[in-house]
């Protein structure tokens, strides 16, 4: 079943908020687990849309990348 953008987005935001007390950054696999019947590439399209809308931001250590809600979590001073 094809993902509906707004529904998927709401589910992703709800998931992130439900974990907000424990962590602010998530691996890509955390989101594919939310949509077990969907292909990873389709989940990626949703996440890319949310990045473009500035709902989500990428976080990178340089070697690993993660996703988080814009403005959530600690950032280096001046970073945001």
């Amino acid at each position: 079943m094809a993902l509906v953008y707004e529904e998927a987005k709401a589910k992703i935001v709800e998931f992130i908020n439900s974990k907000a007390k424990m962590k602010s950054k998530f691996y890509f696999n955390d989101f594919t687990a939310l949509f077990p019947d969907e292909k990873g590439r389709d989940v990626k399209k949703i996440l890319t849309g949310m990045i473009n809308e500035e709902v989500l931001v990428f976080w990178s250590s340089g070697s690993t990348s993660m996703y988080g809600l814009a403005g959530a979590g600690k950032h280096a001073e001046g970073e945001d």
Partner: protein
Amino acid sequence: MAKHKTPLLDQLESGPWPSFVSDIKQEIEHRYANPKGIDFQVPAECPDDLLGLLELSYVEGETHWKHGGIVGVFGYGGGVIGRYCDQPEKYPGVAHFHTVRLNQPSGMYYKTDFLRQLCDLWELRGSGLTNMHGATGDIVLLGTTTPQLEEIFWEVTHNMNNDLGGSGSNLRTPACCLGESRCEYACYDSQELCYQLTNEYQDELHRPAFPYKFKFKFDGCSLGCVAAIARSDMSFIGTWRDEIRVDQKVVAAYVGGEIAPNAGAHAGRDWGKFDIQKEVVELCPSQCIRYEGGKLEINNKECVRCMHCICVMPRALKIGNDRGCSILVGAKAPILDGPQMGSLAVPFVKAEEPYDDIKEFVEATWDWWMEEGKNRERIGETLKRLGFAKLLEVTGVKADPRHVQEPRHNPYIFWKEEEVEGGWQREISDYRSRHQK
């Protein structure tokens, strides 16, 4: 005049080798003198504070860098690596010291006007320090601040016909040897394949969705100028299916001393007369060469394409005519699970445009790894964990004796039920009619 004393770093300038400390000091002087009157957008003392901070780390034996962050350009999840100093008051020039990776041109061919543009850009909007090239192969621009990132990106993409490279859990900037552009050993157009896959997989390069990093490297032949077999998760190494071409007259000229072996590479010392038996025949790893009666014979079926013989006598021996590449999977450096070389997955593919067979293999491999790979697990580790046979299964590559690295290391073949006639069920009475208890 540099503001920090750096006695420990100064020691690194001694000895016969080039020193990054000397290079940075040169840039410190240049930025303070500022002969072109550049309106530096990053503090002029940036390289100066960089050396000061490094000296402090040498003294204390501790790093003062924090790495990682949300910095980047809009829509891109890679290409910029956030770096921050944890002593910003003492070293304000490197409070932000982000790295920008740019996609290097295939084979690293540059025009001087591009290099000038690059240096001008980095003097204005960065520290003036670059790393040509980083371990992955990118152009690495060291040290800038967050407000400069979009400006740099605009300039690079609009006026320099270039783009950011890969970092994080992305496809990393693909890298290739100079291939057919200059090299007679190239068995396929490594630059073209690199270019085509770079364009095809832009989304994977810029928007991270892999469990961890993934690197492509393209070697035109097994001599491996970019060391693809050791440095990339998926390596494309040129090879041929037919026979090494031998010109017996030229072999005789090598033996007779008319032509210097190894293209004259060992001319600095007297190594004695060329000995084809010792220097070629006995060094063949599969012992498939014979030199008798003035004739060189190669048992091509046993040849493992190491190309040693070709390197020693390049004018007499040439690569075959039926050329393409092998695809290997799983090389990585020792971070989690020790170093690994790539394992041969596709013994031969013609490597011709539009490269559909290669793309199919790549995508099937990625689909599997994205599904099964653990976070921060390289595909070589997934391969070890789930087995090479699984990769063959998901990519549709037929198992082949060339996949066996060490015969008799593991002599067991694990059949699946559907591969065995009658499955696992059997009539025990029928068995007992032939075998007593």
